[in-house]
């Protein structure tokens, strides 16, 4: 490789490196607004925390063991995503694929359990039209669920991106942003578990 080619390659790399930093920064700013979005849903839920109208009441319907399993699926998926990022830093494509796949399956399991839980609740008469409490319950929990679903779609796209271009600078940036998104959803779920399920089971 001639000197000129090395210099150009280096300059391009630097520019992309910088671009990646800006992208991650921008994504963190986006996460801030998502945080406020969830904050508003939480506030709404708390305003209606006692607005059961004629029932049903959450205490009879919430199964904490079930939700615990759901919670652990999501928490473990955060850990496995962390392992995937370790492999990204080691530039080990096979390792990234493996841990991403495990993360994907755990996330999918979480969504399936949530859908099953919703179906059970609706079967028991706890529908969103029942009272303000159930309206805000479904609004908050399914907003989180929709976010996780989009995270899964994004992850699926990442497999395609990795197959096309491998671990290049763009894909590393994408994986870093998805990592922020995924951990963020985990933290929000801790809030959902505490405010919605624990408080609901104890109400």
């Amino acid at each position: 490789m001639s000197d000129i080619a090395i210099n150009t390659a280096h300059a391009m790399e630097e520019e992309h490196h910088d671009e990646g930093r800006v992208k991650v920064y921008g994504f963190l700013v986006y996460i801030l607004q998502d945080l406020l979005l969830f904050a508003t849903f939480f506030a709404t839920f708390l305003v209606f925390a006692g607005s059961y109208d004629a029932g049903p009441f959450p205490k009879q319907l919430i199964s904490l063991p079930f939700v615990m399993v759901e919670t652990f699926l999501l928490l473990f998926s955060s850990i496995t995503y962390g392992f995937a990022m370790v492999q990204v830093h080691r530039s080990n494509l096979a390792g990234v694929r493996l841990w991403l796949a495990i993360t994907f399956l755990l996330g999918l399991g979480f969504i399936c359990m949530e859908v099953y839980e919703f179906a059970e609740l609706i079967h028991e008469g706890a529908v969103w039209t029942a009272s303000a409490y159930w309206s805000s319950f479904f609004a908050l929990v399914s907003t989180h669920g929709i976010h996780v679903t989009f995270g899964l779609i994004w992850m699926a796209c990442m497999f395609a991106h990795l197959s096309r271009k491998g671990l290049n600078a763009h894909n590393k940036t994408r994986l870093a942003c998805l990592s922020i998104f995924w951990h963020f959803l985990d933290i929000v779920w801790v809030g959902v578990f505490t405010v919605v399920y624990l408080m609901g089971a104890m109400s």
Partner: protein
Amino acid sequence: MSSSILLGRLTDPNAHALDMLKHEPIVLYTVISIGVIGALVLAAITLMGWWKPLWRNWITTVDHKRIGIMYIILAIVMLVRGFADAIMMRTHQAMAFVDTAAMTSPETAKLAAESAGFLDSDHYSQIFTAHGTIMIFFMATPMLFGIFNYIIPLQIGARDVAFPFLNNLGFWITFAGAILINISLGLGAFARGGWLNYAPYSDIIHSPGTGTDYYLWSLQLSGIATTIGAVNFIATIMTMRAPGMSMFKMPVFTWTSLVSNILILMIYPPLTVVFILLALDRYAGAHFFTNDGQGNPMLYVDLVWVFGHPEVYVLVLPAFGILSEIVPNFSHKRLFGYTSMVWATLVILILSFIVWGHHFFTMGGGTAVNTVFAIATMIIAIPTGVKVFNWLFTMYKGRISFEPPMLWAMGMIFTFVGGGLTGVLLSIVPADWQIHNSAFLVAHFHHTIIGGVVFSYLGGLAYWFPKVFGVKPNRALGIASFWCWFIGFHVAFYPIYYVGLEGITRRLQHFTDPGLQPALITAMIGVFIIALGIICFVLQVLGVIVYGFRHRGKLPVQDNDSWGAGRSLEWATSSPPPAYNFATIPTVHTTDAFWDMKQSGHVRQTTGFHKIHMPSNTAAGFWAGMLLVALGFGLVWHIWWLVAVTFVGTIAVIIAHSFLGNEDGYYIPAEEVQKTEDELTAFLTHKGATA
């Protein structure tokens, strides 16, 4: 309710799809004339063979300067649209006086009311809602983003914004929102609930029509676009400043824009959520804001004003920034109290979040709550006052030149202080109980929004006009436009204060006290004087279009420092600026970076340029925007197959962009940079020789 699978409720007689066209000649003629004008424009573009350059240079562009211009064009069109509503309201109210003697029974009273003026109560409700909604979300916000787009990267010495594709996408989503809400002019109806559509009036029982749905989805689109824009500009300002430009060396306009974007980032999520919840109430039978199911309409009012109050600071802070650029420039002095200006902006950022309760002092919050919000509201006047004094001290002993931008600035200071004072008056709770929701309030917020925001934005357009096009707009028309707006505003709104104090509430469709008619006729005259101001402004714009035609779309490079006293970096590059903004990124040493360059005898680089990396154009934003129009339309009319197809389609377009988009951009070769820079060199040499 009958609805077909293919057309949703378009065919349902209860949805009144074509009622406005059938029963309101005003609407019919408007739709026909828009159709004719639109067809003529499209025909002209086709005949002249402009589709290709339009597509390549504008629709798919990721250049922040071109996107900025598109935002401002959208804003000007919407200004005319919203102003037409204003003219109709003022004319109607000046005529809508009914004789109480004729009202002998409820039936005759209703008849008399319906025959008052030329707008029936239903249409009148749609018009005041359209006026407020369009002016805030589709006039002021796009105008703001147009100015952000054009000026911020230039002021901080950057080559583009942080995320050029998102910038293009944001514009097309805003455009989609504007299109969607304007479809309601002919198909269905506009919302009737005022610019914030309070629940429970906006729920499905009280507003079963399509108006509220149009409102919800188009504002949701506008909200998404605005949030995308805010993320973009925060990232741009925080990460892409020229070397040496620390936070406290940023121009004040960049500072106020940064704070305005932080505000957007924090207040649009509550608005998004409150509209999602109202949509769930309307579409899925949820109970957030309903009277039954233990819903609580007060939550709507709270959430909407958590958005709504900071929103006025979103609009007015950049206006303060524009003034802080204009006043030093035309006083030939540096800005007085730069640091206090920045801190005042930051204090407003914090305080703007704890004043929303003053919008509903009368709704039973109790003395303690009202007192907190009243005191916070009075305190927020202090940082605003600091800014006003800073501008006055900047002008003090300055060498003021009375160019149109400076007239706007001085008109703004004079008018805005008046509007601010009536705001402080409204913050006094006992007084507010008397004049809450009266015409006095209407006069107050127009006083601040027209006097503060619109005057500043128009001043900003006049100030940066030569930067964008190279030539100054016609000066006489500019001065005439200012005086028409200034005089027209005062003639139109002091009578509104007066009728408000006389007890007239806002949004009234007819009046019974003939003693008020002279005041409302005066207000109507005022609004026509403002119309003259808008005509002068449009003539200025036409002037530059003619200029553009004469140069076949390629505007010649002109003086970088158009007003001769530029202080910030946007004046360091040619007018109009090249695609890459700066051939070499300047290094910043002081607050007034360009002024410093001139003082220290900085010599402009004329040879030895390098190739410049640029982002590539993309059509993904445009297609996503068009799909979102269809998505909103499907949601409004319950055409579920269309909703499904366009929802999946929009996501598919974005994903496809991530795979197929050219993420590496391209390079402008050094020779081309050299050629472009030579044009400015030639101009400056010629200017130096003739001077």
